[in-house]
């Protein structure tokens, strides 16, 4: 049975269960003659939960064990005797026969797989029948159990609410599962990568030129230093040179100087800047900014200016980060008690002196936290650098040269047609793990600074 059909069937059964449970509760109450402990709806939900949850669990388990059972059944058939003894060849034939039987594949390529198709069909229908029967028994038994428990004084509400609490907790656990999933999957692939390439080469090597086949003990071109440098140069240097002054000054102007009307206009415009997809920034950087930067560099007399240069990517990324820096600075400036500002103004300081000497120093931890978050965003940013920076690893401080970053290389390594186990593919996960750790650290520090600072004045 397909998943969709299963889903609809369960939903239908659930509705029936809900209605019958509710109806029984109402009937037992006898039009208010005896008082129900819980509202009728809760009895409905109680029966529904008993019908759907065991059935869903059984279906999930069955999805995973039935292929094994079916395959065993096929192997027991007389046609399977002629299968080769080699495990790999055997599995290939079996999976092909299964694909044909399920209609995924039309023609057989392997010897002997066609013979097994009918066996597969028979086994599948047999086990589908078994599944339906067990499912029917489970639904009926659980439903009847729940239905019979309904009495006027049955505490359906507390049971349903306890279940609900479990559902809420499970929903929040998904965040942990995702985090663990990220760490586990990246770690797993990274360990495999380090069986091909030595850790010291990866961390201290200065040449990035990944080879498909590695030889142990030799230098294989997996030195990631140029990538780290490119990432820092574009994300933490060029982008921040643009974003910090512009973002900070925008925040100061909008909160301290601007009229209400200008603020009402400019805030959404800054938000709009934050809402534009990065692929659009990337396209803009590659098509418009990068050629302009190259022409400018040529005008300055830089001979080796590339058309995909670090400058273009960094500039556009900086603009993308402006709203983030602005809103974080805005928050921390607004958190400075107005008594401090008023005091400074009352002493005769001008507004700019107040801002420079009182507000900014007081807001500095929050601003620094915001900048760290911005750096973390910039070094994880992908599309702008993929489209506007280059693919060639280059250990240079020339902003007009083509420079590559960690994220660019992840994309480059994973969008080719390499097979999954090759060191090139695995290298992407090592880079990903590194990126994850660095951004995680930056975020933790930033959040801690921002939080600690906020509490100071409260």
């Amino acid at each position, binding site marked *: 049975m397909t998943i969709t059909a299963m889903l609809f069937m369960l939903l239908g059964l659930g509705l029936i269960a809900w209605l019958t449970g509710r109806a029984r509760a109402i009937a037992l109450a006898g039009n208010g003659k005896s008082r129900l402990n819980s509202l009728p709806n809760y009895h409905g939900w109680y029966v529904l939960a008993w019908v759907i949850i065991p059935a869903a669990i059984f279906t999930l388990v069955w999805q995973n064990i039935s292929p094994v059972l079916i395959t065993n059944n096929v192997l027991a058939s007389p046609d399977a005797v002629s299968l080769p003894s080699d495990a790999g060849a055997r599995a290939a034939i079996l999976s092909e026969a299964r694909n044909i039987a399920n209609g995924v594949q039309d023609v057989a390529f392997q010897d002997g797989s066609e013979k097994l198709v009918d066996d597969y069909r028979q086994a599948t229908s047999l086990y589908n029948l078994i599944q339906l029967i067990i499912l029917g028994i489970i639904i009926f038994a659980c439903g009847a159990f729940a239905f019979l428990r309904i009495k006027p004084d049955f505490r359906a509400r507390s049971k349903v609410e306890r279940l609900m609490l479990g559902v809420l907790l499970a*929903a*929040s656990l998904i965040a942990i599962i995702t985090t663990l999933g*990220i760490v586990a999957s990246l770690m797993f692939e990274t360990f495999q990568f380090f069986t091909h390439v030595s850790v010291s080469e990866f961390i201290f090597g200065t040449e990035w030129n990944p080879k498909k086949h590695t030889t142990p003990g030799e230098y294989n071109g997996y030195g990631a230093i140029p990538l780290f440098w490119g990432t820092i140069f574009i994300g933490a240097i060029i982008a921040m040179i643009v974003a910090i002054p512009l973002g900070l000054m925008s925040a100061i102007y909008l909160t301290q*100087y601007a009229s209400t009307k200008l603020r009402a206009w400019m805030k959404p415009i*800054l938000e709009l800047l934050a809402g534009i997809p990065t*692929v659009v920034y990337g396209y803009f950087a590659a098509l418009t900014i990068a050629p302009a930067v190259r022409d400018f560099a040529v005008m300055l007399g830089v001979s080796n200016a590339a058309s995909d240069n670090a400058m273009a990517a960094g500039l556009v990324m900086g603009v993308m980060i402006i709203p983030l820096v602005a809103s974080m600075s805005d928050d921390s400036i607004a958190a400075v008690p107005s008594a401090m500002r008023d005091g400074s103004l009352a002493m005769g300081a001008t507004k700019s002196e107040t801002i420079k000497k009182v507000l900014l120093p007081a807001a500095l931890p929050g601003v620094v936290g915001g900048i760290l978050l911005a750096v973390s965003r910039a070094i994880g940013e*992908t599309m702008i650098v*993929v489209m506007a920076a280059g693919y060639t690893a280059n250990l240079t401080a020339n902003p007009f040269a083509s420079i590559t970053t960690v994220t660019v290389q992840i994309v480059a390594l*994973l969008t080719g047609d390499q097979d999954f186990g090759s060191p090139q593919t695995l290298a992407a996960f090592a880079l990903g793990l590194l990126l994850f750790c660095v951004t995680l650290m930056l975020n933790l520090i930033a959040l801690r600074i921002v939080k600690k600072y906020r509490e100071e004045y409260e």
Partner: protein
Amino acid sequence: MSNAQILRTPTDWNNPDMQRRIQKRYASEKRFRLIGLVSVALSAIFLAFLLFNMLGQGFKGFLQTRAEVTIDMPAMTGGASVTSISGPNAEAAINGLDLQGVAQAAITQQYGNDQGKIFSSSVGNYLKLQLLDNPELIEQKTTFNLPVNSEIDIANKGDGDAESEAIVARLEKAGTISTVFNMDFLTGGDATDPSEAGIWSAFKGSLMTMVITMLLAFPVGVLSALYLEEFAPKNRLTDFIEVSINNLAAVPSIIFGLLGLVIFLSWFGMARSSALVGGLTLALMTMPVIVIAGRNAIKAVPPSIREAAMGIGASPMQVIFHHVLPLALPGILTGTIIGMARALGETAPLLMIGMRAFVSTPASGFGDPSSVLPVQIYLWSDEVNRGFVEKTSAAIIVLLIFLMAMNATAIYLRNRFENRW
């Protein structure tokens, strides 16, 4: 007054030194203010430049150049009739007519042998669609406006090479060239020829991916926000959940792509480049955003409401689901729409799970290979063919319009349902 000590002489405001100092301070004040204004203006100018740049290039993508060709259908198709191309097998019958050959013959008659330099390679397909809509055309001699190829199209829009410009000038003199709104761009799928490429398959893919993202991220996000804000005891586990959620919201999106690649594709063996995997991956990314927005919205509901409901005997669960959640819902929805808008514009994680396949026909199910708008933009931006520049910008316009509509909805919701207690 006699011997009262004067601590400090009164400020002499007329002293030229003082005047100079004050002037200097005022000048620095003005300078500072101006720098602020300039930084705000720079952001606005950049945004305006970007938008005008996209609009300027993109609007051409919505236009299509066509040239007239008169085709004597009865003579060229060997007497096919309305009855022969209607009925259930209409499409097959029309396919059997070799309309591409018919069109090419007619074009050669009228434009000489350089027809391949003028018209799009999709003229046969264009004629087929026309005949499907109006079968009676098969019995008439009709003048069709056939799409030209992308070089001529670019030349007509004012940016072509010399040879194409000359052809356009010739066609203009003959009065057979025209520019129409390009419906095919909105309804067509990806193609290798820019004059045929459209965004419908990518658009549909985006919608399907968003449906999956929404169905998964919204309930999970709201439920965990409720748990963390209303029920969670203060212990190690809930602390860890909280830190995880805050961190997930700041993890680079490409990492979610790697997660999707390893877990959904490699471990679970789900279909590569399908809307289902794309939606799952984006849901994991969007969920923390919804949780954080949801918690803020729930926090904003005043305790008096909870206490009042408790006071008349509601259980904690009833308080949450009957009172707090409905009041917090507008705020949660606003956050959800903003999170979805971000997911809609996301490219990098989808590249990781292989959603960069060439998809010309829209996916019909959630498991089929599909494309999404941002990835389509990325792929087109890499094309060498110059005709794709305007298509890319046009696709960007569509994406931006969609995003702005979503953000406008969020702002409207926020203003409409903003409660002050």
